[in-house]
């Protein structure tokens, strides 16, 4: 396990998110590529690496954006890294559907926590719009992960 195996994809994904993600924006929703990378890292290397990479990448992304709640992404990405790290080595013990359901659930939880803090006013005053934001961001990123399963399935990275 070389350090470049982490740094190069992180830098690549960070640049991709910074420069290209805007072209894929629908309304105010854009795909979360760093989250996808953390999911892959966690499933491949386990919880520790998942948490560290999640925190580090979240910190970089927050630092490069205009985050209102600075520190929110390190927290949610760390959580994703921790939860997804538990999936390491589980593919052989679970059915593919359950396995896919697990990572989809982790992503959904991550976005729920993110939206809950980011859009707390919406949660309090307009739950419909809040749910729209949550489902929108979740489904958009999940669709990219689903597409990736045809190119590089998660379980192949275990």
């Amino acid at each position: 396990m070389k350090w470049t195996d982490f740094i190069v994809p992180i830098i690549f994904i960070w640049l991709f998110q910074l420069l290209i993600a805007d072209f894929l924006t629908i309304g105010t929703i854009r795909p979360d590529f760093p989250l996808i990378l953390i999911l892959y890292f966690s499933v491949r290397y386990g919880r520790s690496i998942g948490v560290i990479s999640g925190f580090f990448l979240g910190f970089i992304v927050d630092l490069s954006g205009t985050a209102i709640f600075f520190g929110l992404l390190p927290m949610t990405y760390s959580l994703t890294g921790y939860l997804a790290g538990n999936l390491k080595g589980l593919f052989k013990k679970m059915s593919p559907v359950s396995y896919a359901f697990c990572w989809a659930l982790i992503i959904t939880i991550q976005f729920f926590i993110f939206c809950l803090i980011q859009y707390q006013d919406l949660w309090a005053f307009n739950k419909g719009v809040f749910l729209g934001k949550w489902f929108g961001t979740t489904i958009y990123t999940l669709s990219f992960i689903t597409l990736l399963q045809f190119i590089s399935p998660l379980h192949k990275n275990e």
Partner: protein
Amino acid sequence: MYGLYLAIVRHKDHLLFILALTLSLLLILNNTSPEMGVVRGKAAEVVSFMSSPITFIRSLMFLEIETQILRKKNLELSLQVESMLNLQVENDELLSMLDLKKRTKLIMKPARVVNKGLQPNLLSIVINVGFEDGVYKNQAVLTPKGVIGKTVEVGGHSSIVQLITDLNYRLSVRILPSGATGILRLIKNGKAQIREVQKNVKINIGDKVVTSGFSDIYPSGLPVGSVSGVFDDRGSFQKIVNLKLPNNMSSFQNVFVIIEKINEMD
């Protein structure tokens, strides 16, 4: 101690997760600290520098559409500005007319210039008041800057005004403060002369010229212009005074007709 080390190693995932959560919470709670602001400011500079090529490419992508929108907007704004400038000029003119009407004792009828004729030289204009409005032939017409002519033909709701710029126009004037009188006539475009002025009076450049009041048409004291030059007429006992007319004859749109005479000097 070894047991603690073993416990840490065994539960390092959980401990790391707790540490990450704690650090994240600390970051969230210190969002407003000045140090955090400095760090984020520096990071924003780096990000801005790195994003600039993509921003440039994106701006090129939308350049044509943006240019079209801006061109349209520019045209709209130009027309708007033009309209506003015209309105401002008109407003200034109307304000000065209002001011004149307040200042003077004369009874005046406001009128609007409806036609300036087709002649190459502006000799007469048509105004939108006539005998139905109390306007008759040979009444003085002026603007806040001074006399511009007199009515020569009057219809029901319109009148023709002979302008001071007509070569056939004559006006009896007085030069202030000397009080010398003379007859004003136009020499060429925009330049007028006062003749029949006695040689022994002292006249300076910049002296005010007003109507003398000797005429049946013009009450005394109406502004006409200012002296721009004085010289002696050789072989006679008279001076010739050059006059600068204050009105630009091609620009005014609103005038007054004096329908009842009270001498301004009185």
